[in-house]
């Protein structure tokens, strides 16, 4: 009996780790052990989602932490993104809704990091985004890509070129290129915990999939490199100063994203 009580007391003592107030945080190096891979954070959100502004703040903290190595895009989808009442603007897209449904998401805020499961789930709550990004940044780089955009401010036509290279060691063969038009700084009403912010700034919002919801297949039959050229016209309602294109390469079967890049429309040309 004494042994049992002793074992129990020891378990209770071992089961308590009180962190002193001056040790709540510890240093973090975002570059430790990382590869050249860049990471796409798809942040599913909605104007009527009260917890989404906090998720957007988390995305912003991650952007500051990881700099150019993180590309974050807000995708308005789900019930909280549907227009009603004062929320007249519809920021949903056909592609965004398809992704939301395809990955089986139910509510927002929700995010995915490179569409790669973290702790066996593709859909991640905002608190897990940092850990999932950290894990992705330390995986082997399998694809490299570059994108150039030329924008004609008179005709609103932009031409882009993507160069993609399969790196040594990758076994993935069926790859696709996805191109998204993203608009930043859209002002809309937004539900926040204290009520409604009438002039909330929606950041880096996905406005459409330029080459189809699931992108286009890349042809590596001749070499480990390939290039894709496209020309698009920017709708007149879009402000080119706030627009960019996000390009990413993913594996067609698993939908995992292997590399991502982004470029602003150079509207001064």
């Amino acid at each position: 009996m004494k042994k049992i009580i002793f074992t129990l007391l020891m378990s209770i003592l071992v089961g308590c780790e009180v962190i002193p107030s001056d040790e709540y945080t510890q240093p973090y190096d975002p570059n430790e052990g990382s590869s050249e891979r860049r990471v796409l954070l798809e942040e599913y959100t909605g104007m009527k989602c009260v917890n989404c502004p906090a998720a957007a703040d988390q995305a912003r903290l991650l952007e500051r932490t990881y700099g150019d190595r993180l590309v974050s895009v807000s995708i308005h989808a789900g019930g909280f993104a549907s227009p009603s009442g004062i929320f007249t603007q519809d920021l949903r897209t056909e592609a965004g809704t398809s992704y939301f449904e395809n990955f089986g998401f139910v509510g927002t805020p929700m995010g995915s990091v490179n569409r790669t499961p973290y702790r066996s789930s593709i859909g991640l709550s905002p608190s897990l985004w940092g850990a999932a990004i950290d894990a992705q940044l330390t995986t082997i780089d399998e694809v490299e890509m570059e994108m150039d955009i030329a924008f004609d401010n008179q005709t609103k036509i932009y031409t882009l070129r993507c160069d993609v290279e399969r790196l040594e060691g990758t076994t993935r063969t069926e790859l696709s290129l996805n191109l998204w038009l993203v608009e930043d700084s859209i002002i809309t009403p937004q539900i926040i915990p204290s009520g409604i912010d009438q002039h909330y700034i929606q950041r880096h919002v996905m406005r459409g999939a330029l080459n189809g919801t699931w992108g286009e297949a890349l042809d590596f039959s001749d070499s480990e490199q390939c290039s894709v050229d496209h020309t698009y016209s920017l709708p007149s309602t879009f402000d080119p100063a706030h627009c960019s294109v996000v390009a990413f390469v993913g594996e067609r079967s698993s939908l995992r994203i292997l590399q991502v890049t982004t470029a602003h429309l150079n509207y001064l040309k």
Partner: protein
Amino acid sequence: MQRIKRYTTSILTCLLAIISIEASAQQVSVSDSSKTRKVGKFFANSTFSGQFQTQIQYCWPDSVGDRSEYVNRFLSNSYLDLRYTSTMVDLGVRLEAYENPLPGFERDYKGFGIPYFYLTVNLGAVQITAGDFYEQFGSGLILRTYYERTLGLDNALRGGRVVARPARGLTLKVLAGQQRYYWDHSSTWVGGADAAIDFDKIFPKLNGHYLQWGASWVSKWENPTIILASPTEQLNLPRATAAFSTRLRYQNKHFTVQGEYAYKINDPSFDNNYIYKPGQALILSASYSTKGFGVTLSAKHSDNMSFRSDRDQGGRMLQINYLPAFTYQHSYSLATMYPYATQPEGEVAFQADIYYKIPKRTALGGKYGTDIRANFSRINSLDKNYENGANSPLTGTYGYRSPLFAMGDELYYQDINFDISHRFSRGFKMSLLYTNQIYNQAQIEGHATNGNLVHANIVALEATMRLSNSVSLRAEGQYLFTKQDLGDWLSALIELSLSPGLIFTLNNIYNVGETRKNYLFGSIAYSSGSHRVELSAGQQRAGITCVGGICRYVPQTNGVGISYIVNFSTR
């Protein structure tokens, strides 16, 4: 591959049904043979029992909030529970099959397998369980693992448990395990112990007075993740988090008084914005009851008491503890339209419930008496004094301070109910419910339309008539008045019961306010012995289903369904 999986799941579902029916049919012969068979003490008093349940649904296009994963395909949830018990052995297993999970169940459930099995050996004063098990310490403030099929919630622990009764009136429990997460298990280990003393069993002189004291401890051992406090700092997360509780309950013929206090050390989590403040909860309850009259008063303060196997998890999964909702359990559909979900970050709640039966053979009581129930509950936010101001980031800080039962200004939920029920004759009974609810939609659902607070008034009238010895009719009319959310709702239901065992139900819910949409739903249910089958068709509105303050969102559906359930036992 997908097709093979689908067919395999279908075959398994059929097999489960066949096994169940077969076992049910054989119950008499097994029972007979077991009587004649001489068995040892280990297997004495053997009983084999089980239950099979399946629910299959087929949805039309564009009926489930445009979610294509549900339409034009069969969705089904099937369960087979098998249990063998004897004097010394209790062995159980549950098979689950989700062809495509029903609307509202997470896609993570898709598949089939055996997520639950256990073996319990009863050695008299000591009971040892290995495998999956459910357990609750006290009212569950620091540990409650349970299974709620309607919510798709199963947080069973897989590991071991020992329950010992070393002396009269003394019960000790020790356990350890990992919680179920869909088809997987959390990597976090949960361990705990509980001691309960029944003083009335130790001191027989307390005859008629029941006094119980209990104390519990639960810890979790969890690997830390990367949670950023700033671009150059991450949180120093505890690997071991403990919670303690103590409880006292006194009861005599008329009075019951009970209280439970729980404390949890620093547990930064998604639910609390990763603050280091300890959590605490206090539940107090007193009740008095006598023939025809009862009153219960209860109060709850819970502060930062969300306790999960995975600190980064939101929603309903991997909860180690249970925080009860102090609200009235409604049964009418419109009264459950705005159900309260316990707020994990904390709340202060009060509830009063009074029941009175107007005696028979009085002016108001009539021949059979009249039942009257009044209920009031109010739940507010905590009054929080933030260390660094309310608007500064919380992550990586102590957070705030909040004294016990200090109510904040924000109302989460208020519910005032008057329920009167009167039997006019042997074959005719009527009930009237009036409910006034204030529901903080922004806080509870994370969105709101036409204001954060929904003010709803609901009236429900129900009549039950026995038309003959084998025919009875139940009719229900409800109206919900509100200027918020989707506006007013109207509901009408008629239910015809033909004994033995046949029930026809037709229900229509109509949105009078914004959408002006009808949700017409009908069903035919037939029960015979331990079998029950139900066919249904029609539209069901999107809504939130709650059981005890734990909720699940169910999308709108339009289609047909069949459900079947059978219980079987060799005894």
